[in-house]
């Protein structure tokens, strides 16, 4: 990279989590300042806007519980993605894996006739299996045929969207919905319990937190975790040390796709209680979770923190839409600006940048 001579860039050999944290926070602060200008342009005081966001997302019972509800799918998907990214598999297909999870859960809820007591576990298992299969297809194509994972996973999202549309407009359209494109409502047995007085469907949240801990242990403390890291960091070394790249990639995508499917189960069984038009189900969770996992630096435990951060951002966007009546697209702009600042901060995390006269470095 060419840089003016007064800027010195060198690769960091190691970096403490606190430095990463500090750099990321600075990036967010900078993004908030920049977005503040935007609010100004709309005649809204940035202080008022940020006050509303903080109060709305963290300052009341409604705010905190809604932030957590928004965080759930990001956490569940994000945790799984950290594992896929560790194996250097770029899973952009969580959106589609989430959607096939909703399809599987809906199939079980409406058409399986499973005893009520087994209903919820069966829905989660079916959702996991569907998401895992949807994710393992591209994994297989990558390891066996060398086909680019970014592209196949992305393309399959659109196939999943078409699948859900076909079902809700066609064979699964609910007789009780007066011709509108929704399936019938799930029975009470197929609906997830919520924490009283909130909309937090806690089983999904519990799965997310549990998965974060479990996968952290798996990645850091087990043989399989070691193999995943080797495949991701040094595929050649993996080959020579007899690690099966096929097995590891398929495993990583089973976990990642499966968890995205579980997030889908949470959305239909915990929020909608029916299958409906795909763009109403997901709200881009599959894409936002990529950023969650990437920000967590592929650490499953850190995904709890980063998904919470994005829960705050999403909830904050909802709040200022109501409190300040801002156009909804502004939320997209706001997120875009924050993202680019965070992307920019990557440089400072991986490299040490010094401004000043040229100085010899030992």
């Amino acid at each position, binding site marked *: 990279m060419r840089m003016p001579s007064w800027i010195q860039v060198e690769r960091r050999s190691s970096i403490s989590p606190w430095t990463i944290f500090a750099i990321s926070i600075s990036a967010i602060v900078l993004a908030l300042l920049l977005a503040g200008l935007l609010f100004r342009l709309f005649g809204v005081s940035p202080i008022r806007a940020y006050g509303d966001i903080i109060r709305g997302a963290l300052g009341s019972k409604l705010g905190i519980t809604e932030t957590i509800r928004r965080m759930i799918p990001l956490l569940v998907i994000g945790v799984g993605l950290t594992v896929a990214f560790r194996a250097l598999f770029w899973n952009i297909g969580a959106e589609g894996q989430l959607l096939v999870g909703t399809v599987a859960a809906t199939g079980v809820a409406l058409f399986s006739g499973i005893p009520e007591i087994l209903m919820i576990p069966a829905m989660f298992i079916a959702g996991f299996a569907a998401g895992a299969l949807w994710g393992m297809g591209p994994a297989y194509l990558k390891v066996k*045929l*060398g086909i*680019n994972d970014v592209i196949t996973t992305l*393309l399959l999202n659109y*196939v999943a969207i078409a699948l859900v549309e076909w079902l809700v407009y066609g064979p699964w359209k609910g007789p009780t919905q007066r011709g509108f494109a929704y399936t019938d409502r799930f029975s009470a047995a197929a609906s997830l319990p919520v924490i009283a007085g909130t909309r937090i469907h806690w089983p999904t949240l519990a799965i997310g937190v549990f998965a974060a801990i479990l996968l952290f242990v798996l990645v850091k403390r087990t043989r399989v975790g070691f193999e995943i890291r080797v495949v991701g960091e040094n595929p050649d070394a993996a080959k020579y040390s007899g690690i099966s790249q096929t097995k590891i990639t398929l495993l990583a995508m089973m976990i990642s796709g499966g968890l995205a499917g579980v997030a889908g189960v949470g959305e239909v069984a915990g929020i909608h209680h029916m299958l409906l038009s795909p763009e109403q189900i997901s709200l881009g969770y599959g*894409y936002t979770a990529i950023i969650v996992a990437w920000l967590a630096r592929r650490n499953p435990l850190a995904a709890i923190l980063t998904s919470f951060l994005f829960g705050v951002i999403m909830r904050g966007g909802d709040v200022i839409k109501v409190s300040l009546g801002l*156009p909804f697209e502004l939320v997209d702009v706001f997120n875009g600006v924050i*993202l680019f600042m965070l*992307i920019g901060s990557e440089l400072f995390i991986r490299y040490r940048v010094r401004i000043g006269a040229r100085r010899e470095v030992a």
Partner: protein
Amino acid sequence: MSWESWVIETISRALAFGTPLLLATVGEIYAERSGVLNLGVEGMMLMGALTGFAISMGSGNPWLGILIAGLVGGAFSLVHAFASITLRANQVVSGLALTMLGTGLSGVIGRAYEGFPLWSKLGRIDVPVLSSIPVLGPALFENQSPMTYIAIGIAVLGWLVLFKTRMGISIRAVGEDPATADSLGIRVPLVRYLCVMVGGVLAGFAGAYWSVAYRTAWSGGMTAGLGWIVIALTIFAFWNPLYGLVGAFFFAAMRVLSFRLQAWLPPELLKAMPYLLAILVLIIVSRGTLQKRMGAPSALTLPYTRGED
């Protein structure tokens, strides 16, 4: 209705609908050939569509609108170029962010332009002489937007540059093996910047075509997913502008036909088809020599730093 009019109508409409797909696909081919995946096509197209509409309305000149839309698309793509080339950021994340930003910005700014018809739109032309050829004339040369022929010209030119010139060799080298290209004296970051910008300019043209020639009105999110079809088309075209020409018009024809064949084919299948076909194509060409000749650029999505990795 006679079979001739079916053929004529389908081809003629496929040209109109395929024009923005072709423009943006050729642009994305350049970006990806140099090793940079840009998932921000939808965002860049929307920025182009708004710019094209606003400038055409303000100036009364649709060509000026299209031109400036290209410049805005190019400038907008620099955000992605800077993030993914200079900052070596994750291209997927950066591209997604670009789409978010483009959709949001064009939506916010575009509110002032919603609800106005565009009178200074880009008209359609009949190509003299050629349009009087039977069947082919009306199918290809009658009542078409001049942008369609410009898009075809750009695709052919794009192919010539990419495969028949020294510059094209450099671009492909950068996308296949940047370290070797670097050692041969090719300025890897410069080539990548230029290619991403070509992608931005062409996506800007594509968006402007949508709002000043095809649709002649602005509304937020009006490209309705065209940018993602472009991502699939780029693969379907094996990263070759000439195949892009075939692919863009083939998909456009399928889309046009889908309204004719509605009684027999489920619409969701037709919606999913470009994506399924692209995956199928990838599988078919994944074997041996074909993979090398027709597969994805080897360094796609990989940032390059001299002396590293």
